[in-house]
């Protein structure tokens, strides 16, 4: 995932904070945010992940005019082979780890870019999900001045079968 332009906007931060159930006024009220230590609205710690909204090729968002692997008349809109392994079990992919390093906290008005470097890949055998293939990526978020603001490290896991619960 590479994002050329991720404009950080107040309404997006508001919606994101609501979705994670965080009522902290620093995420939604400019006047109250002005009284806090940062002195302005900032984004919640995991907000950078919402850069997916600005990735033109993000595979977990339906694209206009393209087949989508979620259900409609049928349980899936595409055949298994063409899902690109994005469907969870049976060789699908889940999120295993996520780390953020904050060089500074982002605010409305920031315009970020995100560049992704693949990291390590490793395998593990699991009783609950068969063979697991882990893939690491490192995403660097830079602001409109080219300054590094957030370094994110994500690990995805491809499972051989759905995770047993």
């Amino acid at each position, binding site marked *: 995932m590479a994002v050329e332009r991720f404009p950080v906007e107040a309404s*997006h931060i508001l*919606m*994101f904070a*609501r*979705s*994670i*159930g*965080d009522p*902290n006024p*620093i995420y939604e009220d400019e006047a109250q945010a002005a009284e*806090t*230590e*940062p002195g302005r609205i*900032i984004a*919640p*710690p*995991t907000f950078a*992940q*919402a850069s*997916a*909204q600005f*990735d033109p090729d*993000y595979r*977990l*968002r*339906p694209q206009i005019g393209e087949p989508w*692997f*979620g*259900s409609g008349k049928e*349980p*899936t809109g595409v055949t*298994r082979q063409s899902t690109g392994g*994005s*469907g*969870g*079990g*049976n060789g*699908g992919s*889940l*999120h*295993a*780890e*996520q*780390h*953020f*390093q*904050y060089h500074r*906290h982002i605010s409305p008005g920031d315009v970020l870019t995100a560049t992704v470097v693949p990291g390590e890949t490793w395998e593990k055998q699991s009783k609950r999900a068969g063979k697991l293939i882990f893939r690491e990526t490192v995403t660097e978020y830079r602001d409109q001045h080219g300054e590094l603001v957030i370094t994110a*490290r994500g690990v995805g896991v491809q499972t051989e*079968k*759905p*995770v047993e*619960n």
Partner: protein
Amino acid sequence: MALSAADLSVGDTRSMVLVEDLKRTQLVQYAGASGDYNPLHTDDLYTREVAGYPGVFAHGMLTMGMTGRLLTDWVGDGRLTDYGVRFVNQVWPGDTLTATAEITALREEDGVHLVDLSVVTVNQDDIPVVTGTATARVDA
């Protein structure tokens, strides 16, 4: 209010109920806000019949986001320098999640006071769903 290192001790803990009886609608809300529309989180038919799970389950990042509230409420706005988690078990609609953070170290780096925390979020059966660590700047 920012924390002062002088008022903190290794072993201090803080807990918070993050959500009671997690609703499917919140998964839809998170999908819309985050942009992660993976049907595993919103589309029960797909998730049961194609992916092979009993039903939709929460985005790991939703649990990480909810857990972050405990941290930022404790350490203060804009004070986190690091936050990382592993997703160790799935979170399902109906789950009640409680997060607990514990101070594991107080240290100084280049004159900056830092607090290291461990964090774990468990479900109603006390099964961990997210485990992780965080670091925050604190006052002297």
